[in-house]
């Protein structure tokens, strides 16, 4: 405390705006206070075991809001009725799962008892395949372009990254405005001699646009990761290749692609995991419609558990357990792939 008083006197004496730094004084006082309060604890536990105290708040939040819900989720999945409290819910075994899988023909959702669930599964499958492949190709193209020696590189990089920062609601509204009947895109189409397209009222178009806007919104993030991967490739390799007379395509195939593979794996799996979970952007954009055209897995879970007339918590939880299984498989695949990649190199 004595030390902190000194700069205060100095600054009041001199007219220069040397900050008295009240924050520093406050902070030091705060440290002293914590020090006093925690001293008995440290005497009791010893230095090394203080780590438990430091890690405790984080673990508590994890435990209460992630681990506990995970366990509860399993309990919901195996119990029935529309009661929210687990104690009120009778155990029904795997009935919820059986109901989800009650289908006379798995390729036709109309024959399933929970037809919306299967529609959501089909929608999600198509979304994941198309969105991830399109996005990875676009992100790689952009990263390659940004990795060249070009002017305004920092500017272009920020431009491609900017949409990542926008919230799902904002992204949805920006595009809804462009795609509406009298919107900018229809104006362009009409001026080129076409007729207006009801983009968000047509099931196929709505699916296409959900994919396009999610690529628009996320691409910059993956571009950035790929760009970091590209920049980590030593330039000597390219110099040596060009000295040996290798063509640009040959050095791309034999240097860039193999050395970028670990980064690509990370990007691919992160993109897959995100695509399986698509939800945030769709709610304000199409809210799953028209009909169920853009209802994906999470939307199904959300609707079943939160917005439908009868709250089928058990069905929703069973569906989310299935989704968790998919996500774990993907994560596990990533670990295996990255490890395999490390062994090779």
């Amino acid at each position, binding site marked *: 405390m004595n030390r902190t008083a000194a700069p205060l006197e100095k600054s009041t004496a001199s007219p220069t705006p040397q900050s008295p730094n009240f924050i520093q004084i406050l*902070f030091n006082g705060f440290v002293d206070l914590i020090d006093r309060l925690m*001293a008995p604890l440290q005497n009791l536990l010893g230095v090394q075991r*203080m*780590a438990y105290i430091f890690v405790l708040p984080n673990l508590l939040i994890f435990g209460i809001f992630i681990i506990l819900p995970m366990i509860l989720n399993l309990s919901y999945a195996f119990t029935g009725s529309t009661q929210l409290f687990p104690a009120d819910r009778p155990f029904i075994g795997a009935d919820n799962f059986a109901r989800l899988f009650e289908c006379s023909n798995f390729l036709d959702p109309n024959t399933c008892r929970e037809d919306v669930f299967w529609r959501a599964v089909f929608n999600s499958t198509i979304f994941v395949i198309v969105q991830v492949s399109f996005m990875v190709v676009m992100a790689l193209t952009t990263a390659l372009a940004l990795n060249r020696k070009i002017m305004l590189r920092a500017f272009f990089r920020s431009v491609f990254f900017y949409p990542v*920062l926008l919230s799902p609601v904002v992204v949805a509204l920006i595009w809804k405005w462009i795609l509406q009947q009298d919107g900018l895109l229809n104006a362009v189409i009409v001026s080129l001699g076409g007729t207006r397209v009801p983009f968000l009222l047509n099931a196929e178009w709505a699916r296409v646009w959900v994919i396009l806007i999610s690529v628009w919104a996320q691409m910059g993030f993956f571009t*950035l990761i790929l760009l970091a991967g590209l920049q980590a490739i030593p330039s000597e390799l390219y110099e040596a290749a060009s000295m040996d007379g290798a063509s640009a395509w040959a050095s791309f195939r034999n240097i860039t692609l193999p050395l970028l593979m670990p980064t690509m794996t990370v990007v691919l799996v*992160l993109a897959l995991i995100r695509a399986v979970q698509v939800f945030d952007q769709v709610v304000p954009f199409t809210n799953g419609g028209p009909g169920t055209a853009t209802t994906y897995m999470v939307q199904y879970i959300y609707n079943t558990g939160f917005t439908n007339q009868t709250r089928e918590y058990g069905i929703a*939880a069973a569906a989310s357990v299935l989704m968790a299984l998919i996500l774990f498989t993907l994560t596990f695949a990533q670990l295996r792939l990255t490890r395999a990649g490390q062994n090779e190199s």
Partner: protein
Amino acid sequence: MNTIAQYLTRTRGRTRLSLTDVITYLYLTFGTIVMFGPVLWLVLSSFKSTQQLVRFPPTILPYRQETVTVEGYDTPLDLYAVTMEDGTVRQLAQVRRVGIEAQMIDPTNPEEIIRVNINQRQPIESVVFSFDNYVTGVQQFNFWQYLWNSVVVTALATILTLIVNSMAAFALSKYQFRGRNAIFLVTISTLMIPLSVILIPVFLVITEIGWSNNLIGVIVPGAATPTGVFLLRQYMLTIPDELLDSARIDGASEWRIYLQIILPLARPALAVLAIFSIMWRWNDFLWPLIVLRRSELFTLQVGLNSFQGELQTQWNLILAMTVLTLLPITAVFAFLQKYITTGIATTGMK
């Protein structure tokens, strides 16, 4: 002219602009239009009046029809440029329109009514950036309340995240204790458990604690971010242990070491996490959507979503409110984009 061409074709390191460079620039320019154009269109549209917004095809800039106040008429009259029979163009104000005939007057001579075909008149417009949508929107949308909620959530959650995550990272990077690896593994593996998978039980837990319809319910649960713990731990591992040991010899307690040595040294990593946390929290949608049911507690994102549901057709207000919602995060990006991009490139996470 020659120098401009030289300037444009100048490249870094190489002497000539190759075909690949041309394609690269074309691609990047096209990309700039696609990535930034929609946002620009939103901003331009937000300054248009309702009449302008329903106009098809739309104009790029916001226009407003010129009006004139004429004695004897209560409301200002719209001004038109009228092509007369003899080919001259006169500026006339429209009194009323009957079918295809418009009754116009000359503002300088309001007694005489001139009847013209509506095809002969063109509205006189000028570019005006009007803030009317913003003013009305802020009143109708309960904007200040939502903004306040968003700011409270973002600020408190970020502070809490920094404290809780840095404490855990300190323990995980600087101590040897039983269960350390297990705790680290559990922390990292929760990266893979998205909220969407545990929606229902989380809702139950929040309700049981009594945090449903409470901003605390939005702030606390997301504070233990695995990304944050990982990022800070990796950074703290680079702080030499000798520093801690010598502080201990000088009699510093573990809390003093954490507060006065570790935190100041980890400032760069804390800054990156702070920026991340602000981005996450400001844009968060799913969690507040579940926890908050009363509209006076909505954050901007949830408010905006419900606003667009209620007012399907009031695009003028929605556009203005969307711009206000994206403004703060754009400002953060403009000032801190270097930290954001390097932060993401190094951690590879969001």
